[in-house]
Structure formats: C-alpha cells, structure tokens
C-alpha cells in the first residue's frame, strides 16, 4: 500500500525522538557534562540523541589514540631535564612519509656522537599520524600525543615542530597513557633487575672463582 513506507520511516524517527526524552528522564538532568553518562550515552547501550556537546564536553579519546608525536624528557631531582631520546635515528628511518629530521652532534674532542639530539623536527603537514615512530623507538622516547586541538591561522613557521615544541615531560605521558606507561616501567624495572641479577651472579662467580683460586693456592 502506498504511504506505508513513509509512515514506517516517520515511525523510526519518532521512536528515536521519544527515546531521547526517555533517556533524558533516565539521566535526570545528568545527561550531559558527566563522564559516567557520557560512557553510557556513547556506548552500545546508548539510545536517543547521542550528540557530544563539543567544546563544552569532549568525547574522551582512548588511550591508544594517536595524533602528532611528542618527545619525552625526564625531570631530574636537581631541576635539570634529561632527554630520553638518544638520537639513534630509528624513528627517522621508519617514518613512512619521512617527516622527521634529527640533528645529532658529536663531541668536539672525541668526535663520538653525543646521545642527545641537538634538534629534532617533525613537519606536521606531512606526518600521517601512523604511530610507527612511537612503536619502534627502542628508548620509549617518542610517543603519540592526544592533543588534537591544534588549528592555527598560519603554517609557515608553526607547522614544523622543533624540539622545544615537541618536548613534554614523562609525567604528561604517564597521565595520557597510564597503562602503556605502567607496562613500560615494569618492563624496564624487570630489565634492570635482570641486569643487576646478572651482575651479581657474575660477581658471585668471580668471588667463588677467586676463593677457589685462593683455596688452591693455600693447598
């Protein structure tokens, strides 16, 4: 029969409309601007309107979310900072569109490379946010940021990020990617413990050998 199609279509729309009001009642005024209702509204259970009221509330990005990379530095106790990056160049090699430029300098006396980059550039007009640099960096020195609000009026200068612009403290990283951070720290601690254990074992072996030797000499 003609007209049923239209009625059905309207029916769907009306159901969604009613759902929204039902939902409004369910949340009792807590529908917007609260994290827990956001999760429900945006999850599989969500019904009715599911608009995010950006910029007043923001859809939280998951931990794995990747945008532009940033560099990590550690805050030392004496107030100085140490770059994690050793300018090994792996990220520059793996970057698919080749948008990372790293300046490594060498010690003027010895000529050996200094394990800290003099400068580090990423052209964010080329970067494809692929995350390879973070994935393959052996020192966990470069990570993918969550900050996507980067719109600007000019790109000539602002869009080649240099080291000063890329540098962020490790604490920031721990705050945006807590699970990754934890996993990496545990892995590092284990690694250290293993190394220490190895050292100890080696020392013990040495001592044992020395004792043996001494014992042999005694005889």
């Amino acid at each position, binding site marked *: 029969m*003609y*007209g*049923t*199609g*239209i009625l*059905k*279509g309207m*029916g*769907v*729309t009306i159901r*969604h409309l009613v759902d929204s009001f039902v939902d409004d009642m369910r949340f009792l005024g807590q529908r917007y601007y609260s*994290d*827990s209702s956001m*999760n429900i509204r*945006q*999850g*599989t*259970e969500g019904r009715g309107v*599911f608009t995010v009221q950006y910029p007043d509330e923001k859809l939280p*990005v*998951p*931990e*794995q*979310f*990747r945008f532009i990379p940033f560099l990590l530095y550690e805050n030392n106790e004496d107030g100085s900072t140490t770059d994690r990056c050793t*300018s090994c*160049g*792996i990220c*520059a*090699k*793996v*970057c*698919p569109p*080749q948008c*990372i*430029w*790293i*300046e*490594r300098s060498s010690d003027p006396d010895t000529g050996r*490379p200094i394990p800290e980059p*003099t*400068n580090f*550039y990423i*052209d964010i007009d080329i970067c*494809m*946010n*692929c*995350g*390879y640099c973070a*994935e*393959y960096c052996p020192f966990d020195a470069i990570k*993918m940021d969550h900050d996507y609000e980067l719109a600007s009026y000019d790109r000539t200068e602002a869009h*080649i990020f240099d080291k000063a612009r890329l540098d962020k403290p490790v604490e920031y990283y721990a705050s945006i990617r807590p*699970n990754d951070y934890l996993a990496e720290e545990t892995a590092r601690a284990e690694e250290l413990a293993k190394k220490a254990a190895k050292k100890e074992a080696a020392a013990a072996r040495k001592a044992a050998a020395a004792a043996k030797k001494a014992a042999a000499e005694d005889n």
Partner: protein
Amino acid sequence: MSDKDSLDNMPVNEVASDSLVARFDGEVRSDTREGYEGYIVDANMLPEVASVLRDDLGYDYLSSVTGVDYIDDNHIEVVYHADQTTGGKGINLKVQLDRENPIVPTLVPIYPGADFQEREVFDMYGVKFDGHPNLRRILMWDGFHGYPLRKDWKEAYYEEDIKPFDSRWPGGGVKRSEADNPYGKNVNYPPGFDINNWTPETDDSLYESLEKTNSNGKSLHTDSIVVNIGPQHPSTHGVFRMVVALDGETITDLQPVMGYLHRNHEKIGERNTFLQNMPYTDRLDYLCSMSNNLGYALAVEQLMGADVPERAQYIRVLMAELTRISNHMWAIGFLLNDLGAFQTPALYAIRARELILDVFEATAGSRMMCNYMRFGGLARDFPDTLRGEDTVKFITDLVDNTLPKAIDELDHFLTANEIVRSRCIGVGVLPPDKAIAYSTGGPLLRASGVSYDLRTADPYSIYDRFDFNICTRSNGDVYDRYLVRVDEMRESTRICQQVMRDIPAEGEIFSGKPQYSVKVPAGESYGRVENPKGELGYYVVSTGKANPYRYHVRAPSFVNLTVLGELCKGHKVADAVVILGSIDIVLGEVDR
C-alpha cells in the same frame, strides 16, 4: 592459506599448465625465475592463449592487469591474473615487451574488464595495447609528460630512490621540498618546454568520442547534449567525473573520467620499505582501512612465509568483518542520499558506524587510518576497557545486539519503502555473464547471481573455520545490490559472533620480534582479500631488499567502474547517480 607450492599441487592448474605449455609449444613457457610462478607468453599469441584460458580451461574472470618495469633486463612486463569463478587458485600470465616500443594486443574483446586496467598500464608505463577501443590516459591528464611508473622517471620532489632518505639523520637540516624546486611548487617541466608556444589539451576528443543519438526521421528531433557531472558534484562520492551524452533525459553514452585523486600511491609505494606501505594502504579505500591492511599483510606474508598466531587471526577476521559492516552502512546510507532521501538514512547508518569506529580507535589508535596489521600479526591487542566497559564485553554487545538491531532498523524502513523500490527495481541491470566478463566484484557481482567470494573461493586467514553464507541475488539491479549488502551485514555479524565465541582468551598477537625493517625474499606474490567492495589484490615484487620493486594495487572500485557506462546506457540522468551509488566507489581507491 596460500603457500607457494600449492599452485603445482592443484589438479586444475596442472591441467592448465600441461595444456597451455603443450598447446603453445615454444610460445608459452613456465616462468622459472626464483620466486615466480605462472607463464610467459609471446606477445602476439596472447589473445589466443587468453581465449583458450577462458573457454577451455575455465578461467573466465580476469582479475588484474598490471605492468612491471624491469629496467635492468630492459623489458616491461605486463602481468595478467585470471581466476575461475567456480573457485580455486588463480593463474598468471606475463608478456615481456621491449622498453623502447612496448606493444601488446589488447584483451578487451576477450575480457572487457581489462579496459580501464590496460589504460592504466598505458598511462603509467606507455605500453600500447594494440586494438584497444579507447586508449588514452586514465589517471593523469592528456598531455602529461612522461610515464610515471617507469623506473627512470623522476618527479619534481624526487629525493632518493628508496627510503629512508639519508638527509633525515644524523644531519637534520629540516626544510620543505618546495625550497629545492626551482619553481617553488611541485612541478617539473620537460627540457625544451616553451611556455609561450603551447596550448593545453582540451577535452574535445573525449566529447567527440561519445556515442550520440541520431534521431532524424524518427519522432521528435532532439539535440544530443553533453553534460559533465563532477568532479565537484554532491553525488559523485568524491572527485569523480562522468561525461554523459544525453538525448533529452536519456543517457546515450557515459564515460567516467578519473584521476582527480591520483595520489601516486604505487610510485610512493615502490620507494617505501615494506613496512612503510602499511599506513599508506589505509588511505586506499579509506572506509575499509582494516581490510586493506589485511590484504597487504597477506601479500607480504606470502613472500616471507611468516606465521600468524591464533589470536591474531581471530582479531584480523573480526576487524575485517566489522569493516564490512561499517562500509555497507555507509554505502546504503549514501545510496539513499543519491535517491533523494537526503541525510536521514545516512545519519542512522553513520550512527551505527561510529560505534564500530570506537572499537577501531580504542584498539588501533585511529578512527579511520588504523595501520593495525603487521607482517606476522598485529600491532597490539585489545585495550582493557572501552567507554568504561570491558572491551570484550563492548564488542560482544555490539555484535550481538546493537549492530543487528541497527541493521534490522534499516531493513525495516528501507527495504519495503515504495520510493526505494520504484527507483531501484529494474534499474541498472547487470546480467551474470556480463558481470563476470567485466571483472566486477563484491556485491555488484553477487547481486547478479554469481556466487563468487574470495572468502570461500580461495579462503585466506581462517575463514574456513566459520559458518557463513555467500549472499547472492538474481536480478542484478540496484535493488538487489542493496539487498545483498543488507544480507552481507547480517552474515558479517554472524561471523563476528562466532569470533567472539571462539577467540582464545589469551595468546600472542605477533610472531617473532617486531622489526622496523624487514627483508623480504625475492619473488612475486599476489595477495588478495574480499574487501567490502570486491577483490582487493596486492601484486608485490621483491628483489630481496627492504623495498618492494613493484607494488600494485588491484582496486575493486576502480575495476567495478569499467561497467558503469554499460549499466547507465538507456537510463535517465537521475538513475546514473543511483547506479553509481549502488556500485559503491571510494575515490581513494579508484585513483590511488
């Protein structure tokens, strides 16, 4: 899984090889190069060999045509991949041509689906296809200088032959490529180009080549007019252009014009390392990045012989099927847009898609550009939580309840809708023999009643473990394509449910140690998957280095467009838009 030796083990192929080599003694020989398979055919024998292949051996489906420039051996090779629509492994033929003057007979009379692909090879390599009905550039514009995929052709921003570039580290020295180019822009002129004495090419020859009506004598005299739809048009799904010859409202001929989004994927891909190509594949069919990843990973894994752990296999299938649902949601939503139901159905479809994107974003890190598969596994496992819920529970909920409900809702208010039915039924009918001849794929092919789906025809990954149907319909019109998509979404949710039921709770997701530069043994491989739009194939040639020597993408949207002109003839202009919508193209993949 396709291991290399299986070609010789397959009885069908044995028959093929015996009879091909025996029948064309001296003119067809087996390709014996290390890591290669298939047959090398004499150029002038190609049409005969192809007819035998199609008529006597049952290889009725020509999936891919491409070229390779072996500059060191001074020849250009044209590679043909043919399949049987009854299933099984494919077969490939190669023709070796002189680089200076490459001419090969066209296969269009035998396999009409070769049309656009041959034009692409002409455009990129300058291979002339003798007898081709319309041999002109397809991705670049007429009058462009040079054949870009030849190994000795260099672009304006050329830096080095292969990545990584030496200038990036340890020297630094950041600059934009513009600074190096004398013109300050990404352009390069041939030596001797005289800007003052030069006229650009026009589209006149294209307009003239269109078939126009000639209605003198009969009834009312009407003028034939040529209309350009696109490249900027709301219903061309991107920057696509259709040049249409009209008699009144009726289409007498239609020529697609593309290349407006030609991003030089393959040229860049041959400079990239194998791994670096993975995020680029995301940007092919940007609605289906997960399954693009899968196809490429399969092609390279075939060469490397890498194993994929169980859990990773399951997650791969899950992601590929979620991609299929999200793609079909999008396709249906925008098909309705083209039908005039502006926005509303699309909004409901996008809503369901958003939840799938949430899964991708939480797992892979990006909504669209997932870059999730690696050679030998995946980048990472599921996160613990998603929207405050356990991820596994979220996905289970999604595939058990939310998605089936969304699909039912679409079905409920669209399938029986009178306007949808009257606009779609009987429009753009594609008979099955034509669908095969034109090498169409995906829902377009299956709506014509051909039950050809690589997931069962040549199973890859672990699709042989799941229980699902290949959805077909018989009329081959726009409505049936819509129905096939709806059915496929249902089947996909079924597969996802089985994945969530069977997936091992724990396990490795990557075999071996992640490496930033993988060396791939020399040889060729053709990895393919059933993408939501049809067969997505990657033809990869490796010389044993870290970069592919040749990297070709057989894009389903591109090949499916070959039949567009045929489908539209005789219909009204408004139907052309709908037919295009029902083919479901994505320009990133058409133009690459």
